[in-house]
């Protein structure tokens, strides 16, 4: 079942001389539960693509369908609600609110939805992420790996259909990075959450079901590494 499809995505930054063609008429689709890694040189437009898919940035042209909904056709508020329910974004820099503690950061999308937190689920996730000792800490008091785990926990808590991760390990040492990726993979497998992951690390890229190569705003390679639902 197709969960995500984009058609002719184009993104142009700036005007005149400083015009940058970040995405050039990109099209592809992703099946539900698929784990797609995105690779490419720096400045090739990966982050731009992810932001547009996540609905935090608007394309200059083109369409993004998630679960059949053209998300950029939604009103701003509708899009926000859609985002907090359906999409989990994870960045290289941890994207946590510095004034909220670990629990609060994790529960934020859920709380924004006006719902009560499920204590048990929160406890489970916190424990799973190894953050039990740190629940009442602020992001500034956590290490990089811990912060990244918080932002993954946040992306997982709500069980969004799609996880979008932009170099989540870029800033971490190898073993911590591997740990983060395995957490994401686990979510992908356990909850059938679709995962799009940008990375520079070939090892990580090769763990995906499918690998997209982007160069200069265009998809240069779309390679299936293993069949969907198949074992490693």
């Amino acid at each position, binding site marked *: 079942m197709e969960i995500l499809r984009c058609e002719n995505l184009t993104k142009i930054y700036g005007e005149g001389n400083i015009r940058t063609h970040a995405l050039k008429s990109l099209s592809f689709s992703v099946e539900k539960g698929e784990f797609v890694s995105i690779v490419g040189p720096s400045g090739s437009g990966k*982050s731009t693509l992810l*932001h547009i898919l*996540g609905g*935090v*940035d608007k394309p200059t042209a083109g369409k993004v369908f998630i679960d059949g909904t053209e998300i950029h056709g939604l009103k*701003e*508020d509708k899009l*926000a*609600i*859609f*985002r*907090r*329910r359906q*999409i989990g*974004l994870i*960045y*290289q*820099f941890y*994207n*946590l*609110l*510095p*004034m*909220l*503690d670990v*629990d*609060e950061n994790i*529960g*934020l*999308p859920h*709380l*924004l*939805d*006006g719902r009560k*937190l499920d204590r048990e689920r929160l406890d489970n996730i916190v424990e799973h992420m190894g953050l039990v000792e740190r*629940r*009442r*800490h*602020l992001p*500034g*008091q956590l290490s990089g790996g811990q912060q990244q785990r918080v932002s993954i926990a*946040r992306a997982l808590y709500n069980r969004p259909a799609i996880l979008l991760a932009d170099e989540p390990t870029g800033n971490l040492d190898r073993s911590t990075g591997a740990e983060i990726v395995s957490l994401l993979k686990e979510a992908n497998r356990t909850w059938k959450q679709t995962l799009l992951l940008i990375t520079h690390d070939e090892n990580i890229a090769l763990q995906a079901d499918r690998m997209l190569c982007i160069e200069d705003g265009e998809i240069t390679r779309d390679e299936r590494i293993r069949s969907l639902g198949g074992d490693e």
Partner: protein
Amino acid sequence: MRNIVYKVTWKNMKMNMRRTWTSFFGIFFMVLLITCVFVGRKTAVGYLENVSSQIKGKWHATMYDMTEKEYETLGGESYIKEMGRSADKGYVEFPQSANDQKPYLFIKSYEAPCFDWMNIHVREGRLPGKKGEIVISQSALDDGAKISIGDTVKAEYFDRTVTGLQKGVTTVFPFQQIELAGGETEKLSQDFPFYENNESFRIDKEYTGMKDNLTVVGIVDEPWFEQEGAAGYLAFTCYDAERDGIFNIACLFDLENEHYDMYQNIREIAGSREVAFNDYVLAFSGRSSDSVVNFMVQLMTIFFMVLIVLAAIVLIYNVFNISFEERSRYLGMLCSVGATGKQKRSSVYFEAFSLFLPALPLGILAGCLVVLLGMNLLLPFIYSFMSGLAVLPEKVPVHLSISAWDILIIAFSGGLTVLLSAILPAVKISRIGPIECIRGNLDKNPGRLKEGAKSSMSLSAEKMLAKNSLRYQRRKTRGMRRAASIFMLILIVTTATTQILTQLITIRMQDSDIVNVKSEGWDYQLSVFNGNAGEEYEKLKEEIKNDVGVEAVREEYSGTFVGNVPRDVMGKEYWNALHRVFNLYYHRELSDEEFQGMFEEGTNVVSVIGVDDETFENIAEATDTDQKLLESGTPTAIVVNSGEVSTANWVVSEKEPEKYEFHEIEHMTDLGKGEKLPMTIYSPKEEKQVDFPLLVAGYGSKEQLEKYYTFHSESLWVIVELDTCEKMNQIMAEDGNEESGSMMEPTLYMKMNGKKTGLIKRLNALTEADEMHYIFARADRVKTISDTLCSMIRILLLCFVLLTSVICLLNLYNSIHGWIAEQKPHFAMLVSVGATQEQIRRMLMYETLQIFLGSCVSTLLIVTPLILAVRYLLIDQFGAVRIGFPWLVYAAAIFITVIVIFGFMLYHYHREKDYRLQFTG
């Protein structure tokens, strides 16, 4: 730039143009305001002195009929800065005159400074330099006199006298205040007209024996004190030891130094001789002979300075604090490569003073412009206030008053303010280590390890975010809090002080002005006092009515305490209020019997206003008056039923009241309509009280009568028709002499048609000459210096509020912008996890509300003691008066601040909406 710290700071300033401009603008505005205070005060005072010196000259005091002895004594006094002698030499024939009503010159002799002090301006030629030289008033040339510079006048000085010729007949010259019985002779002043002799009086010349050959060396502008109707043109010569060794001494005081007893001292030296103080000029130097005025001027100056410096410090301090985080980031980098604390501090000072340097001259320049502009805008107001004091000769242009010394003071206080504002941020930044800077954990104590603290997840997401965000950003929001606080503080303190000051001044004025007549549509009023409404007044009235410059005249009578009524006429409400006032005087609860015992004998007084038929009809219509009763044929009255009883307007001799208490009374009497007011008035002829009952046709409340009068009286007032007044005055007049002290006194209201006549000047001189009998003034003002001050305080404080509000608003705008801008990454994060615009806005609303409430609390904590202190200070100065606490002012200030804060917040939030693009690295 060799210093690397300066270089980096400078680069950073250039990179953050917007912020740099804001800091610059803040400092610039501070300099501007300090300039406004210094230059503005001096310019305004200089202007007011200048205008007021147009009224009576620049001198401070003049002592008349002095001798050499007093001159020497005075010269030794430390408070005298300069003295000038003058004398009247008398009349001389002036054959060159072209006006047969003005055949003389009146020669005055002045020592050099007196010319300037009396505003004598040379028009042509020069001032007299030695004996035998004179200058002549331009008025002579205007009339066509055949005289020019170089001509000579043969002078044989004489005085003029008038002698009454008819036995038993009094001749009255109303404008000169001369009443001449048959056979009496009086010396005439320089203002006296040229009259042909007739059967009732004769004018004589009495030669003094002095002779001179006078050469005309100059023509001067018509002096302000020259009267058109006088028989001689004014001319001035040099002072030299004058006849009889008697002269006048004008002097300037040394106003720079306090001399507490100078007024008393001068009066002692003068003894029984006349002394005049030029209060018009003295008032505006803060040295009026009225101590209340002095106190006010002093108080206002301090008040202004303190508030401005306070607002400026908070503004600049905030500007630096807003850039704190960013600065600490680049300084942290520098620090990590080895910059010392001192170097980091110097970065703040460098930025502050590199902005202060260009801001100083620009600020001073702009300040001067603002002062000029402001003064010119205020000119019409100032002018009309001043003309409430006296009739001004001409418009006076504004001259900026600024000296090198002023610039030095401005530079110094500006620099000091900048330094003071920069010290704290500088010290704070030098304490911050590199890690905190780079990590963005600028708060030494970033809140909490939340152990033990209650989790706020039971709140809604917006509230939770707001709560945590506030706790986290306490330092960042402090600037906003401060900005809001100082804004409210200035609004409240200034408005409340204005209110209290004007209220106190008004209360003080009520002593003399129990009833004020609203006289819209009339230009001037002439009030007659002390039973002067005799023949002299009638003649004056005729002259005024016949003057070509007068379009209409209205006459109104009033008499305070002219009638008496039995005690029981006064109503229950009145007695109850009085009872309570007496309790305060006796410091205990008086029993009814005891209280009534104090009033067993005697009567209550009644005051009367008499108005013309038309006004009476209008008042009857405006009030609760029975038309049928008015036509009954007997004398009728409309009773003013509002009154005031207080510890201020009721004094029990030799007793001090416990405190001030004030009772507003709605029913002064309980008499019904159609009943008789059993009034008696005193008849000197019969030497007893005679009945003069008035039929009560209706009642008027303070509010109903507002259009015509304002009442602040503890006694009963009635309004009657002029006919009734005349009847009463006939009874109250003394036998053979119609000028009795108890009669009702008239006020004439005049409407002018714009034709220029000398009438205004003559009437003005009449008041000047004899304040006890006439007061002539513009009708649209109550003419006291206190009242003028009241209005000026209002305007000045309004300007002050407006100007400082600009700083405060800039401050708020800035702080809120900084606050929102710093939160931009947070907004981006929130958006990425699916917060809607509405949710972020709501979060900001909660935060703003919290910040506002916080600043409200701190403002109230600071302001309330301040207001109480000001109140205490003023009450201490003015005696026991009741001043309401300015709740309304608080409410208004809070309301304005709420609007401003939320307005700015939403504005900035909507401007920063492009934050979505910002959240990658």
